[in-house]
């Protein structure tokens, strides 16, 4: 835990804010000090375009008075401002109370006094000189630019250190630090005479790791970068896909995003009861279907968790002061659970929140946000991806995420990918292009015939899952094995068919 964060007057701010909230009649109040340090390096064709460090830091006070929330935040970290901020939060409840036709109650949570949690990483990215990072990105860019057919290279690294202190009127105090990195390299080939271009991006997902992720721990960069130019050349030469129902073997580098959009968001309880109806949307998986909705085939078992090592949504405690947990969302194809926070747990009839509250900065109020929502691998057999491909006579093997879009109820979706390899007779026989696949969530997961074994299971994820107004972003990972799905609708994006 960084000493400069611990040196902030955290306890004094908490005492000041929480006392002011109590005196103002709040039945519950919490203070959060939130710091986000970000470094962004970006190179184009081996030259630095962006070298930027940024930091946000502030305090936030949330009060619950007579069942009505009030929230306020400020950049100044002094006890006087903490008191004033608590009073502004109380003022907000008074000003807007007429709009509150329902009253909020919070699920109980054991008190976690003095809890400290730090995410696992080997090398703090801030301990590495910027020159070393730029040097690594430059070397990789230079090597790729030297490859045949590569006209442009973009390379970037975003590293984040997030620190938070939480204290509430029940006596919980938590102090946490998380580190995450998002490296990304893409190459482009340009046909100037024909006026066309094509690109490919590395598959390495963002991860809750340190600088070691860039140098080989958790990802084989050498292997991926070596094959990238030839894969791009093959993609350019590839024929356009024939549209129609198609058997798909989907790699975890693509499937994580489908899980995120069609299961992760659909099992957020706040969405399911309409809290995001005017913005992010609702969910077809409404609470009246809990325990009965056939989400997919028997093979489909999905969990939510905030505990998986290196997961982007992994924490020790959420922003309601609830200890991180793992829980079921879909078991054997049936909807069995939701992600909730302390305010939604009682509405669902749960005694305790499963720990999904998060705010992306001091300026934003904690919301129910996504846990690491993950598809479980085959529990019986460690089937390799090649075994799933071998079960397909004529289909596609989908690798890497690209474009995505899903409707307001998380039902109708369309995805593309980095690469689509044609499968003939159980073998890969080259790429095709212009591919998108489109489906309805329950049809798609209903067509899930098999999943790969534990050895195929990988974490994918993103730094920037968006939700709420004002908009917030959250980092989240999704683990999944390779998967075999039958008869998914494939479009040709070139012809529009």
């Amino acid at each position, binding site marked *: 835990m960084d000493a400069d964060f611990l040196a902030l007057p955290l306890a004094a701010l908490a005492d000041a804010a929480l006392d002011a909230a109590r005196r103002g009649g709040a039945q519950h109040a919490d203070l959060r000090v939130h710091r986000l340090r970000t470094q962004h390096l970006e190179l184009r064709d081996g030259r630095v375009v962006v*070298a930027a460090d940024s930091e946000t830091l502030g305090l936030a006070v949330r009060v619950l008075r007579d069942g009505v929330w009030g929230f306020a935040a400020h950049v100044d970290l002094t006890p006087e401002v903490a008191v004033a901020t608590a009073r502004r939060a109380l003022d907000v409840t008074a000003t807007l109370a007429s709009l509150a036709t329902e009253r909020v109650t919070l699920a109980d949570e054991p008190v976690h006094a003095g809890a400290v949690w730090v995410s696992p990483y080997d090398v703090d990215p801030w301990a590495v000189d910027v020159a070393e990072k730029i040097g690594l990105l430059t070397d990789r860019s230079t090597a790729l630019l030297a490859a045949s057919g590569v006209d442009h290279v973009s390379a970037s690294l975003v590293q984040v250190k997030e620190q938070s202190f939480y204290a509430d009127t029940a006596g919980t105090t938590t102090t946490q630090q998380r580190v995450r990195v998002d490296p990304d390299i893409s190459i482009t080939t340009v046909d100037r005479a024909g006026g066309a271009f094509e690109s490919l991006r590395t598959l390495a997902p963002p991860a809750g790791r340190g600088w070691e992720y860039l140098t080989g721990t958790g990802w084989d960069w050498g292997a991926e970068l070596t094959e990238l130019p030839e894969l791009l050349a093959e993609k350019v030469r590839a024929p356009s896909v024939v549209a129609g129902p198609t058997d798909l073997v989907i790699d975890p580098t693509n499937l994580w995003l489908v899980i995120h959009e069609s299961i992760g968001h659909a099992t957020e309880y706040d969405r399911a009861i309409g809290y995001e109806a005017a913005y992010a949307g609702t969910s077809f998986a409404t609470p009246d279907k809990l325990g009965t909705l056939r989400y997919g085939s028997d093979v489909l078992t999905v969990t939510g968790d905030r505990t998986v090592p290196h997961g982007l949504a992994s924490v020790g405690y959420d922003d309601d002061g609830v200890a991180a947990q793992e829980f079921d969302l879909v078991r054997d194809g049936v909807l069995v659970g939701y992600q909730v926070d302390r305010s939604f747990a009682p509405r669902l009839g749960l005694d305790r929140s499963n720990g999904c509250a998060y705010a992306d900065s001091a300026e934003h109020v904690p919301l129910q946000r996504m846990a690491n929502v993950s598809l479980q691998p085959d529990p019986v057999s460690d089937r390799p991806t090649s075994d799933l491909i071998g079960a397909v006579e004529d289909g596609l093997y989908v690798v890497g995420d690209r*474009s995505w879009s899903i409707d307001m109820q998380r039902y109708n979706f369309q995805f593309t990918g980095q690469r689509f390899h044609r499968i003939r007779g159980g073998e890969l026989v080259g790429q095709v292009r212009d591919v998108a696949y489109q489906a309805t969530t329950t049809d798609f997961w209903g067509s899930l015939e098999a999943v790969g074994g534990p050895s195929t299971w990988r974490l994918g994820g993103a730094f920037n899952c968006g939700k709420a107004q004002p908009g917030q972003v959250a980092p989240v990972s999704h683990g999944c094995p390779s998967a075999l799905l039958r008869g998914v609708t494939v479009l040709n994006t070139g012809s529009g068919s």
Partner: protein
Amino acid sequence: MSTTGSALVERALAIAAAQVPDAGAVALVREVSEAVVRWANSTMTTNGNTVERRLSVVMLVPLEGGTGAGVVTVPAPTGLADGPEGDAVLTDAVAGAVQAARRAGPARDAAPLPEPAGPADAHWDEGAEDTSTAVFARLAEELGASFRPGEASFGFADHRVTTTWLGTSAGVRRRWVEPSGSVELNLKDPSTGTSVWGGEGATDIATVDVAALVDRLRNRLPWGARQIELPAGRYETLLPPSAVSDLMIYLAWSMGGRPAQEGRSAFSRAGGTRVGERLGDLPLTLAGDPAGAGFADLAYTPVLATTYSGDEVSVFDNGATTGRVEWVRDGTVATLAYPRAAAAEYGAPFAAPTDNLVLTGGEDATLEEMVASTGRGLLLTCLWYIREVDPTTLLLTGLTRDGVYLVEGGEIVGEVNNFRFNESPLDLLRRATEAGATERTLPREWKDWFTRAAMPPLRVPDFHMTSVSLGR
């Protein structure tokens, strides 16, 4: 704050000049005061009143072979410009930016900082302006009164006041205040499943007539009494201004000059760019204009202030005066976005991305008049979850949302299911057959990043709905 943003800018620039006398320096302070309220199922869900203040230091450091750029942004609590503790923070920020610039090496977008267009702004030394949830007094009263059984109300209102101070070592001293705000309302009729949406952007939130907005939306709810199922396909479609704005915003975001010159954009073509290419028969002009292009509350301060370099903007251009840019003129691609260095490299005019977009050139017809002149077609409300499918053609996918209506014989005859579409905004400009009167609108999809837009409704004879969406 006890010291104004101007004092902080001056102190940061003084420390920068002392550390590296021959470097260029930019100091940017932004204070954002924001009030928000959100509701769902006819009850308030979240709210807030927040104050954020940050200082960015951009150092442009001479190096062998050119100039490097580094940026550091730090929180700017009250008193940062006062005393040794504040100086230590500012010194570290400047040193960090200098180190980043040296590590980065010579930048391709390097250029001398723009000279000031005039003396320091008259209000340079004044403090920040703020807002509070008190601005929602009228909204709370009218909205609360609108909640009624048998109807569910959802929405969001925000009011944000941003005060910016920009100073550069070239002598630029600018301060400006930009209030912005919006009210979005979504009504649902549980008995039919019908959902309607409307929104308004406003710099003064108290001017928004929420009661009138509620009435307008309630007039649409009966359109859902007759539900009609239509399959995917190509339909004559009327896109209202909000839907047009979301497509034009994405188009404008894709108009980087360098990508087009390098052959890696939808605005590339064999041997060059698409500048000069006529898109369609309608004489439409898509422009950004700090003066507001005839819409007073679309105006913005014509000064470039950025902490990020990319294909369209450069930190070396901080302080540059920006002006009207016509991205598309009379139906022809006219301008691509270039920082000053890239503009010089390609012999193109400097054109910074604009903070508003106005599409003009249509007839005087209102959307209602265009409905009346429609034989059979679809009327949309807005678009959602727009994402790029193919960058070579700017093919986008997305969904219709909160009301698709079937028009027959000039009248709305019922509500249709939602659709997923796959369309390119470039192709839509090529195929549109009618544009109506331009009006102020709120982009549904991109509102978080872009609120200042005025668009006409468009008629597209063959809008491509690729599948049915059961989402409501």
